[in-house]
């Protein structure tokens, strides 16, 4: 397979299966996927350090389970963009639908617009930076990693959260069960500054509030019944 730069894969003429197989066989280089037209699972399952740009809007699971590749969605992304990502990066130039970065273990997901409900649900180590706001139930059962929201967060942020750290600049509609506001210590200001810089933003980390687990639901007892 051609590994030279500027390979183009046109979803207007190739099937999704052909495009993804071609991407799976490449080991390096730059690829432009054109005419996605809302197709699902575009560039899902990549395993090599490709530089992929998807020129247009994607359906569900764009760059799902990504490993090592850097994928840019030059449009909006449907449900579960970058779901279960292990490494590499995914950047959405527009808005993202529900469950962005769901269960992802690693890598960096940047949504330049807004992300809908359940952003970072069950996240397991990924870093997510959202340029706009996130919807309700974001970071539900978030286990590890960091979620940065430059705008506002919807209701029940961080419900049943484990050890993930959440940073929100705007207003939080409400916190979910066992999620509490926490002190911004120097190490948090430093890691937030680093995350913002990696995502291409230069906000003052001190303008953010940190949220995380009160660790009150970690053990069953009669007062923990919800």
């Amino acid at each position, binding site marked *: 397979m051609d590994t030279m730069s500027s390979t183009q894969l046109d979803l207007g003429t190739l099937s999704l299966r052909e495009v993804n197989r071609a991407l799976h066989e490449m080991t390096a280089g730059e690829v432009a996927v054109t005419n996605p037209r809302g197709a699902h*699972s575009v560039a899902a*399952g990549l*395993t090599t350090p490709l530089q992929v740009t998807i020129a247009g809007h994607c359906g*569900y*699971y764009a760059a799902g389970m990504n*490993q090592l590749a850097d994928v840019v969605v030059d449009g909006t992304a449907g449900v579960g963009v970058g779901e279960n990502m292990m490494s590499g990066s995914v950047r959405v130039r527009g808005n993202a639908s529900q469950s962005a970065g*769901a269960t992802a273990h690693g890598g960096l997901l940047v949504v330049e617009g807004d992300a809908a409900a359940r952003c970072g649900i069950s996240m*397991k180590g990924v870093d997510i930076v959202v340029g706009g706001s996130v919807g309700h139930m974001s970071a539900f059962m978030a*286990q590890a990693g960091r979620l940065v929201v430059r705008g506002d967060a919807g209701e029940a942020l961080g419900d049943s959260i484990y050890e993930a750290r959440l940073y929100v600049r705007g207003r939080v509609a409400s916190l979910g069960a066992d999620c509490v506001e926490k002190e911004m210590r120097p190490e948090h200001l430093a890691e937030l500054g680093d995350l913002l810089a990696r995502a291409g933003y230069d906000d003052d980390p001190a303008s953010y509030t940190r949220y995380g687990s009160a660790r009150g639901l970690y053990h*069953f007892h009669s007062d923990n019944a919800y």
Partner: protein
Amino acid sequence: MNHASHGLRESATFDRATIHAIQRAASTGVYDIRGWGAKRALPHFDDLLFLGASMSRYPLEGYRESCGTDVVLGSRYAEQPLHLDIPVTIAGMSFGALSAQAKEALGRGASEVGTSTTTGDGGMTPEERGQSRHLVYQYLPSRYGMNPDDLRKADAIEVVLGQGAKPGGGGMLLGQKISPRVAAMRTLPEGIDQRSACRHPDWTGPDDLTIKIAELREITDWQKPVYVKVGATRTYYDVKLAVHAGADVVVVDGMQGGTAATQDVFIEHVGIPTLAALPQAVQALQELGVHRRPDGVQLVVSGGIRTGADVAKALALGADAVAIGTAALVAIGDNDPRYAAEYEALGSAAGFYDDYQDGRDPAGITTQDPELAARLDPVLAGRRLANYLRVLTMEAQTIARACGKAHVTHLEPEDLVAITLEAAAMARVPLAGTSWIPGTTSGF
């Protein structure tokens, strides 16, 4: 003391177990969590009988004529379907719920007789992959340890919507079993009481499932069979929706199916018996034209399979294969009487032990305690499982030959009758000695 001879009468409504449950709830304030599956009496395969060959049916010679047992699972869309030598598979059980030794034993036993084993809610261990010739990788709501590399290493993928012990509920693993290794695999703090999600985080409903299955196929380049597993509830509809969503194989787990840790109230009161679910699943597959076809959708049934007779009855009713969980654990050493004193020290007894959530299993199976786990020899336990699987297979063959079938999957509902009205209605076979199928035919 013999209570009856003293004129004492136990309440059928408030029996001693019920009274104890009320007392336990009152003293602890927490619901009872336990392992195993439903313990109540339910209509089951025991309520069915085979007719056997007679004047109008020819039996096959038990020791001379062949009776095939092989099955192919996943031939609908997958480029690499599973070819199993026997129609009995090992159900999903997690590393975490079980010790690494127990998982290895399951892999060894299954591989020895050419069948598959299955991961669980907690990811794939190298020991398990290494010892399993055919390994099914579960894709669960929690996605603990979910790794695309493991997805590609698997021989099949099982999207789990639910299990028979708790349809609608997520997994549980109490702190005693969250060892450093288990915690690391699941990205959780050590020692916490873990509650798995009950819904998938990135899809909802059958239309989304179609897209999710397509994603899993894209990621694995359409090589692996994709199973969909449901707990038995609205089985007719669930199976139809799973087929429409693109499943290669549908797994239906009845309420007798086991669990490592679930609320007792959930185990005993949610879901329907395996016998009630199986014919619904077959009807759904038949109506869609995918039952028992080379490019069709295979049906795997689990929940209370114990003997070759159960296997034969499930196949006769239309399953392509069965899965065993509890029986496999018993085969490798669970509830072994040689640990009788230790079970009693835990407030239980050999034959009753179901505190799999507790992590103190004397047999070293449902534990993460290194000393207890070391009691289980994976090689010996694997051999015991292989023996048991062979017996199940030979028993099923014995019945199939007696019914004149050259392959165990040639057994059919016509070979069966029921001995209770309930079983006749659920299994949709006649009450023995009559032509009456309650709900289907009008009488004699």
